[in-house]
């Protein structure tokens, strides 16, 4: 009985911590508020990780734990199920919110609101990953979205507010379609739980089954908007680039991955959804390629990183959809799912590292234009930084995303591309890797010495560089290195959680085999070649044209309608 209630603690503890911080904020003085904030973070972010790790043996042993909340009848109550997927998602969220929170200690003035929002977000993500009920999913997705809009607009600058407004209109109107889909499903089935719907769906007539498929499409596409696959990713560039730096790290790292893994449960409702998975994998690889081409053409540093987020989520979606295509119970499907999860985890780490370090660097340099700023080290030295730690951390992040050993990007990308080998997705993703290397060489030019002689650069640094920035960067860089070195052990752990039989299908020889090392070398050379082409005269003209492509408000909805029509055509016709 105690175990049944223990797995609800990641949902409940952060909310309790947030309410304690609020009471402290309204009734106590400023000093006491600081203490309660630290206490709240320990109670709300660290304690759930420990509890969830304690539950790991149960999950391995039993497969999953499920209860009805409040022990009411299953016809009306809400069903919650905790399995290995929820465990990974909760650990991912709580672990990666921590460095972003530490970074934000250095900048924010109305700080307790930021802490409260982070804690509520971690609670709601725990709820999303465990729920098995349609309407509870709707409520939790809306809360997650609202927290994202408020966090983006928290900078109170007009660009950030407009980006948040755009995202809000798009996402809220699509959630209305989600509600309409759940109306259709409830009318056909009479219950809101996934398992009940799956059971009743096979007994309906064929006309009713078509209507149920339409309702499921109406429920899946709004979630795909949050994941930002290519036609539906018009909101992401502005939202991630104009937000404050800690918020960009959280958005890119966590909030675009969680809806994807929740879709696994929705896809298991009906076996007819299987036809969609191949289409989704092609959409994913196209996203990876187009994202990286658009990233190469950007001049704003944070927009470049935002387009890279789109490209990397394309990798994850490709692997995830191929996992669903082969079936999650089979070994190949489980391995692809593990590859997608590990890439999601390592992407969160190195993208967080990149956003935070580039954010600090561009703040010190005063502008974000990649073509104009140089010698950022000097500016950081002027702000009080004694060792070039920001530059080192940026290079660790860049090496990770370019898939160079021994960092974690190398292991996750190798695993992903090895197991999707015999399809066209493999070629597209390999081309995308070349583009990644080229654009990061472009981005690291900001640390080079500049050609012009400027005014005297070395000033007296009397200001102290905030320690929290360094601490967060060091934590993320250490995580990146450690998850790379211990990748084998982590894969072992994930295999035990997701694969039910005793065979261990991941061959560890693939990482340092001759083909893989040669492939990395060729990709690196191709990246340097592409960079040289892109900075030549002809290349820069093409890139300039790409940069001028405009994205209207209406275009987002046209993309939404086209995606709906595409899925409708694939499933029903």
């Amino acid at each position: 009985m105690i175990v049944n209630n223990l797995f609800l603690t990641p949902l409940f503890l952060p909310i309790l911590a947030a309410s304690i911080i609020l009471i402290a904020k309204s009734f106590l003085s400023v000093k006491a508020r600081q203490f309660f904030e630290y206490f709240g973070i320990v109670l709300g972010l660290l304690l759930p990780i420990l509890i969830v790790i304690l539950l790991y043996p149960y999950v391995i042993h039993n497969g999953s734990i499920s209860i009805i909340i409040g022990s009411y009848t299953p016809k009306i109550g809400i069903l919650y199920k905790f399995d290995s997927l929820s465990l990974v998602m909760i650990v991912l969220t709580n672990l990666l919110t921590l460095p972003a929170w530490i970074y934000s200690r250095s900048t924010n003035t109305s700080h307790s609101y930021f802490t409260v929002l982070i804690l509520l977000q971690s609670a709601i993500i725990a709820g999303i990953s465990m729920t098995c009920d349609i309407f509870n999913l709707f409520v939790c997705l809306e809360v997650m979205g609202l927290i994202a809009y408020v966090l983006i607009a928290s900078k109170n600058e007009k660009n950030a507010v407009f980006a948040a407004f755009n995202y809000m209109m798009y996402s809220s109107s699509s959630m209305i379609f989600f509600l309409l889909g759940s109306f259709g499903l409830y009318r056909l089935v009479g219950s809101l739980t996934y398992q009940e719907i799956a059971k009743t769906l096979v007994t309906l007539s064929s006309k009713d089954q078509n209507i149920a498929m339409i309702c499921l499409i109406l429920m899946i596409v709004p979630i795909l908007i949050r994941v930002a696959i290519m036609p539906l990713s018009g909101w992401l560039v502005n939202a991630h680039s104009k937000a404050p730096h800690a918020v960009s790290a959280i958005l890119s790292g966590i909030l675009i991955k969680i809806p994807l893994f929740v879709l696994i449960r929705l896809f298991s409702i009906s076996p007819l959804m299987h036809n969609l998975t191949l289409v989704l994998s092609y959409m994913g690889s196209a996203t990876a390629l187009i994202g990286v081409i658009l990233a190469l053409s950007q001049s704003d540093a944070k927009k470049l990183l935002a387009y890279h987020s789109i490209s990397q989520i394309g990798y994850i979606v490709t692997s995830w959809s191929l996992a669903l295509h082969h079936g999650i119970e089979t070994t190949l499907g489980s391995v692809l799912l593990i590859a997608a999860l590990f890439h999601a985890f390592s992407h969160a780490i190195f993208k967080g590292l990149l956003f935070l370090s580039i954010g600090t660097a561009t703040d010190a340099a005063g502008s974000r234009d990649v073509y104009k700023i140089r010698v950022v080290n000097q500016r950081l030295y002027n702000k009080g930084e004694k060792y070039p730690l920001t530059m080192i951390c940026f290079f660790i992040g860049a090496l990770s995303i370019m898939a160079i050993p021994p960092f974690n990007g190398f292991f996750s990308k190798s695993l992903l591309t090895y197991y999707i080998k015999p399809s066209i997705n493999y070629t597209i993703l390999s081309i995308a890797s070349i583009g990644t290397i080229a654009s990061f060489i472009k981005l690291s030019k900001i640390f080079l010495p500049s050609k012009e002689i400027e005014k005297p650069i070395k000033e007296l640094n009397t200001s102290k560089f905030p320690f929290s920035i360094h601490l967060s960067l060091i934590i993320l860089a250490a995580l990146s290195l450690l998850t790379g070195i211990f990748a084998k052990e982590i894969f072992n752990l994930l295999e035990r959680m997701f694969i039910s039989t005793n065979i261990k299908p991941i061959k560890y020889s693939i990482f340092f085999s001759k083909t893989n090392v040669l492939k990395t070398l060729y990709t690196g050379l191709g990246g340097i070649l592409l960079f040289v082409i892109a900075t030549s005269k002809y290349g820069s003209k093409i890139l300039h044209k790409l940069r001028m492509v405009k994205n209207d408000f209406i275009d987002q909805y046209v993309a939404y309608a086209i995606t709906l029509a595409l899925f409708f055509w694939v499933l029903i016709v």
Partner: protein
Amino acid sequence: MIIERVLIFFIFITGFIGLISMKNIIKKIIGLNLLTSSVVLLFILEASRIGDEAPIIDNKVQNIVDPIPQALMLTAIVIGVCVTALSLAMAVRLYKTTGSLDIEIIKQRLEDDCE
């Protein structure tokens, strides 16, 4: 009857067209409100077909309507109100800092300030 559902569907389409085609931000927010209200109405209307009386258990009631959609729609209405409040606050902020409520002019002015 089917005519009521079709009419609610037309409110839905009106809200959707308002959301995507109107240039004024406040009109877009009104369109979003219309979308929410139409789905709420549809849910509750359909649920009230299976009974006659309000769902309060008493000695005399025999045939109550389905109470689950009513409870779900309470939540949906509150979510709609919250989104409206937040978007109106953003609209006020955008107006005060860029001087216009038209979405194309706001985009133009934000780009000009960036460069």
